[in-house]
């Protein structure tokens, strides 16, 4: 089943790069929002996660802060 996956990130954060690399390696399609340039998405990220650190991952409404591999695997059913 294909799930809707959104990544809120900045181009300079190493964990964001690792997260996106991990998703690509597992053939997970995702929307990538650059919160350093997209103010509306930045505010959306802060409101859904209640914090300001990147990356934030939204897997069909399940919010995961940071590159938490185990949680991500579980949420994606990998």
């Amino acid at each position: 089943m294909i799930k809707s996956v959104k990544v809120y990130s900045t181009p300079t954060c190493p964990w964001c790069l690792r997260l996106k690399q991990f998703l690509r390696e597992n053939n997970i399609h995702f929307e990538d929002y650059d919160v350093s340039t997209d103010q509306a998405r930045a505010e959306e990220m802060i409101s859904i996660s209640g914090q300001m650190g990147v990356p934030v991952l939204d897997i069909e409404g399940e919010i995961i802060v940071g590159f938490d591999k185990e949680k991500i695997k579980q949420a994606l059913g990998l």
Partner: protein
Amino acid sequence: MYDLIIIGAGPAGITASVYGARKGINTLVITKDIGGQAALSGDIENYTGYQFITGPELATKFQEHMRKYDIALKENEEVQEVEKIGDVIKIKTNKGLYESRTAIIASGKRSRELNVPGEKEFKNRGLTYCATCDGPLFRDKEVAVIGGGNSALDAAIQLMRIAKKVYLINIASELGGDVIMRQKVMESKVVTVVNNAQTMAILGNKFVNGIKIKRENKEEILAVEGVFVEIGLIPNSEFARGIEKNQFQEIKVNSYNETNVPAIFAAGDVTDVPEKQIIIAAGEGAKAALGAFGYLVRHRF
């Protein structure tokens, strides 16, 4: 049983793993993250072969290099204890127990914390230790950088291109760091340097909305939405209990990267090696791996 376990995957650990793999020894890398502090650096202009590369890009290159070889990797794992019993080194992590004949500690350094009220509460809620990562979220906002050395200047320089106003809260009477960086900060209209100021508390509701500082025995509050803590680094050496360290808790090594415990080596920023640089850490990692290989040969493992 591994021949070599490397703790950490910054420039020292990754270089050591590549040297270990090329010597054909059974190598495991246990690490919290990949790239270490190098991955958090802004612009890098002194790593030979790259006239200019960013920290995240260099970390990606390191990682690609490591993955070229068949090196076992345990990521997101934290070492809690290293102990040598007879000829076996036992390494306990938050997820398991591993055994090896030799080990290299290359666990690097981490940001020093302020230890003031509000710091833990507002971490990632306006307070951060990484201007490179989180700076872009503070566009057109007022922020404070705490510190007065090179890393504080580096953060202020990154932020003066993003934020509306940057307070540089320096506990000393003047700024330290490199003269070129100091000039950039002093010339900026966005940056206000506050010398002789001690940070007392981080304030806010859900997110940061200010900091309390103390100057000449008077407390004042600055309204800021972002706080960047850049007051230096401490070594990730707590787990290495039986290993000799200096007054800064850096692991003592000789020029062969040997610690006081035979078969346990250390490399990079976690050690007392003079000068903490990416290229130096990488070179130290290579030396440590060759040292570990030599140890295995001498002991006919």
